[in-house]
């Protein structure tokens, strides 16, 4: 595979850009970014840089038991959290709307506190640390409680 140049934030390891030709490196360095070689598959969403090496982000799966709830303050959805790979952490910060919760993990598996709603709305659930983890956010939609 053809390696490519990766620009990353030296403080966080976040990949900020990739390119196949070296001239871009000077421009990156002028912006305070560091540059390194990386595998062809390295990308902003899939990799990060640790110790100067591009490594794949740990994959996190968010699995809600249901994506639609009734906005009655009673109905609720539970989002299961699974960190794939070896040596998963003991906990993971998961964002719920504009707030977050530290989810305890056992063997990489845990669950967010149940989500309920009192008005129709859609709340997004996503991993707070998107630099270290790769995760597809999920949304829980609360629909009007219609009683005929």
């Amino acid at each position, binding site marked *: 595979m053809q390696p490519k140049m990766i620009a990353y934030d030296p403080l966080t390891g976040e990949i900020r850009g990739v390119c196949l030709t070296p001239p871009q490196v000077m421009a990156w360095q002028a912006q305070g970014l560091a540059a390194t070689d990386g595998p062809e598959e390295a990308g902003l969403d899939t990799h990060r840089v640790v110790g100067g090496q591009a490594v794949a982000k740990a994959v996190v799966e968010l699995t809600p038991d249901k994506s639609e709830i009734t906005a009655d303050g009673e109905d609720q959805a539970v989002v299961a959290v699974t960190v794939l790979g070896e040596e998963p952490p003991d906990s993971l910060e998961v964002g719920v*709307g504009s707030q977050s919760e530290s989810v305890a993990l056992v063997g990489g598996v845990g669950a967010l*506190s*149940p*989500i309920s709603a*009192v*008005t*129709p709305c859609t*709340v997004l659930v996503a991993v707070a640390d998107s630099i270290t983890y790769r995760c597809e956010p999920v949304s829980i939609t*609360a629909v009007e409680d219609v009683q005929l």
Partner: protein
Amino acid sequence: MSSSSASLTAQALQTAKAQARLALSKEKNRWVVSDPASPQAVCATLEEADNWQQGKKLLQEIFTRLLSS
């Protein structure tokens, strides 16, 4: 910036704004979410008013919140 990436950026901003507007609280180890701009929340707020002056003040707060969201 291409029109598709501009559209994605606008969509992401819209989503972030909608999420920031939501009110979240933790009750009995459960997240309770509400949208203060929803008709249900507006009605519930107005029902709290005991008199016209209080209702007028609540209406002003609701419109201020709606206009800033």
